[in-house]
């Protein structure tokens, strides 16, 4: 019976190939759009999640106000407002697990005949832990390196590739501002940060060495940034309050006077980036779904036309013994075949489209079994939903009225 009905549906659809194909096209476009948009949306979410996982958790960034930055008054007569001593004081606060003061800037690096421009970061060993940054070969510098201002460096993957090519950098020497630095380790790969900057294009050296040999700031003991890691997400608001109170007190700011530093909650910024991509991918999906709906309405439209055109056929079938449910399932099956076949083709095109987008823009795409399943279920649902009304109209026809038609 089902085989006979499938053959019948095939014949009916074959009788009007162009119309069947165009009806199917509505579904193809709808499903294709949904699959592609979901792949792109989920890809964006994945990329952001990936980036956030490289950032380190529960982080605050304290940014010095300085005379150069404008707008903020600096404490202590010019230069960055945050001091290494501030960082040490913050480290004593309850709920703070790690504090890393850092100074940074772009510098020219030289190794043999190779030249490379990278961000040089001067900091303390706490930096690696706060950012959960592993060392892929060699070892990190220690607090004693910071105390004695040794000339050692850890370099990021991008910097390593550009200065050393395929050679192992560990044990080699690079020059920064004429000073030789011994490369003692290579950092693990992190990729881009939320602003799209390559985090691996960096050299990390002890803070004291950086201040003396590289940046040569007149304000020894001042830093541009202090990275603070709270012990847990729950403690972050309390830690933020304590830090601000402490810094205002240490900087002798009176009530009503503005902070001479910025506090940036990196974790909150990451959360909002994640939320933004989530909303964006939802929006993409919703817009694509509209075309799926339009495809469904197209099916309904054509099925209604088909029922009217084939009223006499329905009459003949009823005259030879077709029951209402036979007619109902015949038309429902046709709608279902159109929508499911359209869905399959749309699925292929959607995946192909997503791969194409990935190939030409290197946007991350994620095609999950879930989204494919959802698209399939929705297509079948649309076939049944929009096919049901025309099919029921066909089944409810009176045999004699149907036979008299035209």
């Amino acid at each position, binding site marked *: *019976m089902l085989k006979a009905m499938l053959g019948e549906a095939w014949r*009916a659809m074959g009788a009007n190939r162009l119309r069947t194909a165009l009806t199917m096209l509505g579904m193809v476009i709808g499903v294709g759009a949904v699959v592609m948009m979901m792949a792109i949306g989920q890809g964006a979410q994945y990329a952001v999640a990936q980036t956030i996982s490289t950032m380190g958790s529960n982080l605050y960034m304290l940014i010095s106000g300085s005379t150069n930055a404008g707008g903020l008054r600096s404490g202590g007569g010019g230069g960055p407002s945050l001091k290494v001593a501030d960082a040490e004081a913050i480290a004593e606060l309850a709920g703070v697990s790690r504090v890393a003061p850092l100074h940074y800037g772009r510098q020219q690096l030289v190794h043999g005949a190779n030249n490379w421009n990278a961000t040089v970061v001067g900091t303390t060993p706490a930096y690696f832990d706060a950012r959960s940054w592993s060392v892929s070969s060699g070892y990190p510098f220690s607090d004693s390196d910071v105390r004695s201002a040794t000339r050692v460096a850890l370099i990021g993957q991008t910097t390593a590739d550009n200065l050393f090519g395929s050679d192992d950098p560990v044990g080699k020497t690079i020059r920064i501002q004429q000073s030789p630095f011994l490369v003692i380790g290579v950092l693990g790969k992190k990729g881009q940060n939320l602003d799209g900057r390559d985090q691996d294009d960096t050299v990390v050296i002890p803070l004291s060495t950086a201040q003396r040999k590289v940046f040569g700031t007149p304000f020894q003991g001042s830093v541009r940034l202090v990275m603070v890691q709270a012990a847990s997400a729950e403690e972050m608001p309390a830690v933020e309050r304590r830090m601000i109170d402490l810094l205002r007190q240490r900087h002798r700011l009176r009530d009503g006077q503005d902070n001479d530093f910025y506090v940036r909650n990196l974790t909150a910024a990451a959360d909002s980036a994640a939320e933004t991509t989530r909303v964006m991918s939802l929006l993409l999906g919703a817009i694509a779904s509209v075309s799926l709906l339009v495809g469904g309405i197209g099916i309904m439209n054509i099925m209604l036309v088909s029922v009217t055109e084939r009223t006499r056929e329905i009459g003949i079938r*009823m*005259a030879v013994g077709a029951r*209402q449910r036979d007619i109902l399932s015949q038309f429902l099956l046709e709608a279902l075949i159109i929508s499911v076949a359209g869905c399959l083709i749309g699925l292929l095109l959607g995946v192909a489209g997503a791969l194409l987008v990935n190939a030409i823009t290197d946007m991350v795409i994620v095609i999950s079994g879930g989204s494919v399943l959802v698209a399939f279920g929705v297509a079948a649902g649309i076939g049944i939903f929009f096919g049901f009304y025309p099919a029921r109209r066909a089944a409810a026809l009176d045999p004699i009225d149907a*036979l008299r038609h035209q």
Partner: protein
Amino acid sequence: MSSPLIRTLGLGKSYDTAAGPFPALMGVDLDIDAGEFVAIMGQSGSGKSTFMNLLGCLDTPSSGDYFLVGRNVGHLGQDELASLRNRSIGFVFQGFNLLQRMTLADNVALPLVYAGVDREQRRQRAQQELARVGLAAYAESLPSRISGGQQQRVAIARALVNAPQLILADEPTGNLDSHTSEEIMRLFAALNGQGMTIVLVTHEADIAACARRQVRFLDGRIVSDVATPAEVLDEC
């Protein structure tokens, strides 16, 4: 014999028209036994088709009762009526009513699809019925490729395929020339000879002469019901 194959009691049908209900059939009483060959005659608009549609369970009466093999058809639901059309009645139309997209074999097998017969059996029985009407060679042709007379024979094969108790034919020769009409009538006569009950509507006396009994309608009522004289019957 216990009960007749067909019994109508005061059967009436009125159509809803713009000018109010129009009575097309009024109180028709008729018994037809198994094995009979009945011609229904009467001028245009006398209610013949209306009556046939009721007998064929294609339409429902406005009044009166219709018993088919002792069952009151008026008490049956949609599915049971469909089942009667499928198993007990073979209907032959003036306009053949074949499905143009299907091969002749598939057309003939159509009632078997709704009877739940499997594919192989359907093919066999369709082939058998096509052979019975002399069209075995055309099984895979489409209806548009054969003549009107041949199409009507295919329609008869379709009516026969589910071994019904009754063949109803509303002006089966109405669209055919006289030579082809005679062929179709010979086919009906042969089927009746094999014991099939046949009720057919015709305008033409020489067609009606092939039937053994002639019922005449006028303005929705039966006005005469006679056996065909033996000498006339022989001419057919």
